């Protein structure tokens, strides 16, 4: 469905210091029918990637195709069967829900009885029936996101590109939104969704981890977790800050990640359990519990980012 080949986009003038590479040599294949998650922190290049795929931003170098159509030369063909939902609310604030949906129907040539039916269906789907006559600026953030999604779905697109559809939405609305996405996916749509939330990434078929414009890893959540070269221990103790400092001096500890009142410690294998306990006791740290825990994408992602930073620092030192 989607194929990108060394897709890059820079902003700012070339040969200037302030030039930013938002997306750096992104090569990616997304098959038909997949729910693909693009995950990464702010500024990782998720939005830029989606904009290029939507045909509204020209790549600096590299190329990409959607259903074998080039995203630059055949952008208008692609737009016929594409549903794109920008990160910011992209519909008209001064128009009502109904007016906005009718406008989008006009744009996609959804007319007559088909339009009535489709709008009804979408309002059912998103529970927006009672807000039809409300101007969209008076909708809550979650309702705006749902309206945005409805607008992207009007023409039953083959491919949905959703840019952080749940950012700024309350947890209940977020859950509802993902239920809608799962339903859409089950009905055969190909969906690419970007998100900064790792728990959302877990619900995708495959996940691409982006950082500083680069795709650091791309696989199913299960396989991504196997990238972690070891096991995770969750530590509860009286002085986590000191424990973190101490453990970082331990050569066999791969990474230490604080998470609330827990310290996630990554070590190569279970044989290190004893050693961890002993080291902490030596420094008078009272351990409440130290148990192995299944890794989540969050730990994997942080581990990969730290490795990446270490490597690039090393490279810079070598050049210097």
């Amino acid at each position, binding site marked *: 469905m989607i194929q990108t080949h060394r897709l890059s986009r820079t*902003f700012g003038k070339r040969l200037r210091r302030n030039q930013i590479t938002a997306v750096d040599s992104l090569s990616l294949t997304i098959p038909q029918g997949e729910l693909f998650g693009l995950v990464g922190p702010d500024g990782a290049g998720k939005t830029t990637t989606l*904009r290029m795929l*939507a*045909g*509204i*931003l*020209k790549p600096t170098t590299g190329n990409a195709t959607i259903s074998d159509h080039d995203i630059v030369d055949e*952008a*208008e063909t692609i*737009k*016929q069967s*594409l549903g*794109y939902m*920008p990160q*910011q*609310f*992209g*519909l*008209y*604030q*001064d*128009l009502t829900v109904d*007016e906005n949906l009718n*406008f*989008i129907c*006009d*744009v*996609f*040539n959804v*007319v007559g009885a088909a339009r009535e039916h489709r709008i009804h269906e979408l309002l059912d789907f998103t529970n927006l029936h009672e807000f039809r006559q409300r101007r969209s600026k008076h909708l809550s953030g979650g309702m705006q996101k749902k309206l945005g999604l409805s*607008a992207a779905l009007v023409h039953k697109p083959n491919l949905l590109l959703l840019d952080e559809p749940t950012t700024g939405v309350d947890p209940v609305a977020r859950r509802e939104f993902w239920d809608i996405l799962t339903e859409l996916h089950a009905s055969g749509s190909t969906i690419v969704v970007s998100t900064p939330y790792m728990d959302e990434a877990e619900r995708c078929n495959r996940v691409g981890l982006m950082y500083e414009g680069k795709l650091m890893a791309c696989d199913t959540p299960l396989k991504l977790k196997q990238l972690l070269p070891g096991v995770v221990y969750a530590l509860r103790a009286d002085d986590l800050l000191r424990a973190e400092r101490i453990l970082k001096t331990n050569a066999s500890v791969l990474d230490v990640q604080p998470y609330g009142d827990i310290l996630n410690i990554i070590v190569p294998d279970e044989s290190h359990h004893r050693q961890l306990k002993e080291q902490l006791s030596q420094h008078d740290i009272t351990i409440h519990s130290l148990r192995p825990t299944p890794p989540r994408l969050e730990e994997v992602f942080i581990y990969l980012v730290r490795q990446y930073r270490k490597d690039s620092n090393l490279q810079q030192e070598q050049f210097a």
Partner: protein
Amino acid sequence: MNQRHIYAIAKKEWLHIIRDPMTIFLLAIGPVLMLLLISYAMATDITDVPTVIYDQDQSDLSANLVTQLDASDVLNVTDHVNNTTGYEDQLEQRKARLVVIIEDGFSDQLTTTQGLESIATSAPRFSFVIDGTDPLSAETALETAVNISGQFVRNQLNTLVEQPQTETAMLPEQRQRLRQQLRAPVDIHTTNRFNPDLKAIWDLVPAMIAVALVLPGMSISTVIARERSQGTLETLVATPISKHAILMGKAFPYVLIALLNVVLMYIVARAVFGVPFRGNLLVYFALSGLYVLATLAIGLLFSILIKSIEAALWASMMFFLFPGMLLSGMFFPVDVFPFIVKLETLELPVVSGVLINRGMFLQGVSVKDLWWNILLLLIIAVEGFEIAGRLFKKRIA
């Protein structure tokens, strides 16, 4: 291009316009309001210019002259002074715009036979001092004062020359010579075509109609920037709607509103200001339509070139409003501008708009007389939309 798309964009653009109080005000009431306010303000003919008299002669005759000056609509004698510093102060304090100095010996020269004899060598003398900081009213006042005093002197001389022999010591040959001197060398008749009473408002209102019609042009110059700043452009350009449909759809409501304004302002000009209309009404509305298209084309081009709402508004103000007032020919004829400024006015549709409006209202000119301006407007309209269509990209950066 898909007609449904143009209609869809036009419909939503219409909703934006009527739901934004600022825009609807600027578009619906703005031009007519501008026409009413500015026409009333600017078209006041000059009257009651404060005038100070320095009468060195102090005679019945000079008092008589002062009464005649005061009787004019243009002048209003506010004070009498008897030295130079007196009127200098008044000028500085802006209590006087014009000072009339009647020099000593004025009445002697115009009432006695010796005086009359001396006229051949030295005429009676007046001096006028005007406030140069306000040339428009000062010069009008000066012209009036010069005319009145000149006429006054001629009348006085005529009475003297024609008075019965019993009341004067004048010799017949003396009388004959003076008669000849008094005969005017040229007989002047003036006819004011198109505007017989030289009413400023007749001249101003048609020009003002053209200037007020720049408001829709200014307003449309923010349409793309507005979509950009609200984030809706991103959705719009990601749909398969063609860029030409977007631009045409956006222009459509503005064209309608501008045409509505043409009709409204025509009615105001005729009914409120009583300006005559001597052209062909159908031709006038057709040419106004062309003029409206030219201004909107430039406004639309601005909206594509300039990325932020504020910058677009400022740029269109600099392009439409100021040149509209100053360079359009409304107050100063375009012919007197230096070459380089004249060249600049070629790209200002308002110059042609002013000419068309004045010509149609006052002179009743035909299409043939306006061909150059019609051609200019056509080029601006066609090229404006064409370039706008080429520069507008369905991308966000």
